[in-house]
């Protein structure tokens, strides 16, 4: 499949890709575009489930003990199950499949100018394992005892002993689903790296690769380097649950803290695994809609490497007060706060890109700019939590919760909408409705801030996470605090209602939208040089690359963009 060495391209290329039957085109595809969309659609369905869970438990917090419309009574057990699986789903079944597997699959071959992934069947297998893992997770909600409720970090002994968790099979199916999912992404990941290394269009040097592709590849490398310990831990946890081993049980000579180290050694790089793809997508969108060359392409790239490298030595900042030696914390404070250095530089470069631009506020650009604004809040509040002494007060409080929602919501939801609205014309060959897109943007962005800004205050007031009813605590049952909870819940409902605008816009535009030209945004990257949607095999003639991806508004040229594959005059 690799075309990197194919210096001579002919028109006969397309003949290798004859039309396939429905079964092989959509159900058992090897085409990276269809596999990417399978991931994206699965992720979007899981996002609906995750959002529904959030609705149910936020209603319980705002109106404790009352029947939740469309759900029913949320007791302590259901509450634990809902928060646990909300977190699991949003990170492992929405952020990962949509941003990395979904857009990685769709974008990498198109943006580097080749006809498919280098291992198309491995790619198909990867999605199929992912689908199985999704089904296992959904099954776990319905087994006897209910779904797992030991928090998405699943600290043992709670998660490893059925008498403690009271969810015997729920816990086992949960860890099985997570492990299967990692296997799937390992298969996908090796494919992404190999494809980018070997199958780039002739002329595309490393420094000509669009940032979106670069960051997905860096993210995948981080993922593959960090996931090993967690898969080992997952197997040990599963054996503790089902075979009676005692890796994490002190009564049998094990240690509960071992799991925390294994989990967070993966868990912290994981934050950057999901952050980087969105950062890359946002870089491309900002450059296109401000008609500006990216400010310091190499700097941005190197800051991503530095962030990735540092992310491997910060994991114990999740465990400052978990019973580790307090002296160790000092080391991790230094490394954690150091991460602000590359990330600040990256952020400054993005903002500097806007300088001297000609900014057009299309929907994708609104999403990209709102990502920068809200991720900034998520980033600076992280400094509080990296400081170990403040973590004594804030650990597992709503301050932490608000902080990481200010990172994960922009990354996952805002990033997903930015990418979907930007590449929608390429995916489906039709344009989305701009007006509905903007209504949906404001209807999501404003309630999002109304949900999570007040939660910082609740954190300051000493409110802890994962408690199903704060009326049990006199210091937290104050009416003023309850009013804040109700406000956040109402904002969440408003946010969820506005998603119907998106769903309507998405499906109506897919079938009835205005036909999209090949390059509706006047962008430079290779995916815009083929037809919308691209044919099986992507390009009629495989492109040759002559320049970097960000040559916008070059002085002396009439057009303000200069596609990568346009031969020099």
């Amino acid at each position: 499949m690799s075309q990197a060495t194919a210096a001579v391209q002919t028109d006969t290329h397309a003949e290798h890709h004859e039309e396939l039957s429905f079964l092989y085109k959509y159900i058992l595809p090897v085409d990276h575009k269809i596999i990417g969309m399978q991931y994206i659609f699965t992720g979007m369905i899981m996002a609906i489930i995750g959002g529904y869970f959030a609705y149910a438990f936020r209603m319980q917090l705002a109106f404790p003990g009352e029947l939740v419309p469309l759900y029913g009574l949320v007791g302590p057990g259901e509450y634990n199950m809902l928060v646990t699986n909300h977190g699991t789903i949003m990170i492992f079944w929405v952020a990962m499949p949509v941003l990395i597997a979904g857009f990685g699959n769709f974008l990498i071959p198109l943006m580097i100018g080749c006809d498919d992934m280098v291992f198309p069947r491995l790619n198909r297998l990867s999605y199929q394992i992912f689908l199985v893992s999704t089904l296992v997770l959904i099954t776990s909600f319905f087994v006897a005892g209910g779904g797992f409720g030991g928090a998405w970090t699943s600290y043992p002994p709670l998660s490893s002993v059925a008498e403690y968790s009271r969810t015997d099979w729920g816990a086992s199916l949960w860890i099985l689903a997570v492990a299967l999912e990692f296997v799937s992404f390992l298969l996908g990941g090796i494919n992404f790296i190999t494809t980018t290394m070997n199958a780039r269009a002739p002329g595309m040097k490393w420094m000509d690769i669009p940032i979106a592709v670069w960051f997905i590849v860096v993210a995948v490398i981080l993922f593959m380097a960090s996931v090993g310990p967690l898969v080992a831990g997952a197997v040990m946890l599963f054996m503790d649950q089902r075979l009676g081993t005692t890796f994490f049980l002190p009564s049998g000579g094990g240690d509960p803290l071992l799991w925390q180290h294994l989990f967070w050694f993966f868990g912290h790089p994981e934050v950057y695994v999901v952050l980087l793809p969105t950062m890359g997508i946002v870089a491309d969108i900002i450059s296109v809609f401000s008609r500006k060359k990216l400010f310091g392409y190499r700097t941005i790239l190197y800051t991503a490497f530095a962030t990735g490298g540092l992310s491997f030595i910060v994991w114990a900042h999740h465990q400052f007060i978990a019973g580790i030696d307090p002296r160790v914390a000092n080391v991790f404070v230094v490394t954690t706060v150091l991460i602000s250095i590359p990330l600040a530089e990256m952020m400054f470069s993005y903002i500097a890109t806007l300088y001297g631009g000609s900014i057009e506020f299309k929907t994708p650009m609104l999403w990209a700019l709102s990502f920068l604004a809200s991720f900034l809040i998520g980033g600076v509040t992280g400094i509080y939590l990296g400081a170990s002494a403040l973590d004594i007060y804030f650990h597992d409080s709503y301050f932490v919760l608000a902080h990481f929602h200010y990172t994960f919501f922009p990354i996952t939801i805002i990033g997903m909408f930015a990418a979907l609205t930007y590449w929608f014309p390429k995916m489906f060959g039709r344009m989305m409705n701009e007006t509905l897109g903007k209504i949906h943007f404001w209807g999501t962005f404003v309630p999002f801030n109304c949900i999570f800004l007040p939660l910082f205050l609740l954190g300051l007031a000493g409110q802890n996470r994962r408690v199903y009813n704060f009326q049990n605590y006199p210091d937290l049952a104050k009416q003023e605090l309850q009013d804040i909870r109700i406000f956040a819940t109402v904002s969440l409902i408003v946010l969820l209602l506005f998603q119907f605008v998106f769903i309507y816009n998405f499906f109506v535009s897919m079938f009835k939208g205005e036909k999209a030209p090949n390059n509706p945004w006047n962008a430079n990257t290779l995916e815009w040089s083929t037809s919308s949607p691209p044919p099986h095999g992507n390009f009629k003639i495989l492109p040759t690359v002559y320049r970097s991806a960000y040559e916008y508004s070059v002085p002396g040229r009439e057009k303000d963009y200069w596609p990568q594959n346009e031969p020099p005059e």
Partner: protein
Amino acid sequence: MIEYFVHRASSFAGDIDNLFLVITLIIGFWFFLTFGALVYLIIRFRRKEGVKAQYIAGEKHSETKWTHYPHYAVIAMDVVIIAINIMVWVDIKQTLPPRDNLVRIIGQQWSWSFIHAGPDGELDTQDDVATVNDLHVQTDKTYHFELQSRDVLHNFSVPAFRLRQDAVPGRTISGWFKPTKTGTYDLQCAEMCGYGHGIMGAAITVHSEESYNTTMAQIQNGTYESHFQKRKGTKTKFPSNTSKVDDEDSFAVLLASVF
């Protein structure tokens, strides 16, 4: 700012609140600077007919200084934060000041057991006083605690003390606190511990010496009425509504001392 929401009832609560304030000032400055730059650039360089965007690669020194100089300032601020933080952390978690009294705290699904050392100041002796979900301490005495768990991970969390520590089965974790303000405060479990995690609360009461001795006597002769049970279903008030926030510590006084 924390002291407007939660009482400041231990000796190191003020240190943590001040650390919060220092970090807020530093990152607040950065946040408004960066956010302001972002908003300004978005408005200033919005698309206008006939105006073409500039071509800036961001590779020359004259251009990169705009991101590099703020960046060096970030490093300087980081060093300040790290230094202050480590000072506070070493104080609270790494050093054990000499103790006046001792208490053993045991978490289990889903209640707290407390063993007060009694007059002799030693645990596992005849005069130990055991309670469930009710911890009694004296003001201005330094307490050491031995934190244990019988089953899963728990977390001993007292917001009014700004204190939090995980309890790990199979280990005894020691630490200290010194209450400074009388009153009854929430004590919560802050680590997911299963079905009853949400109700695993207790009450911690800081007594004057006299009231402490009375309460201990009541517990021993069986006439004690649990503070935890009495508080259930009630709602407390913000510190700013009950009494004036300790004037020496408040933000206004701190600012006044700066200027």
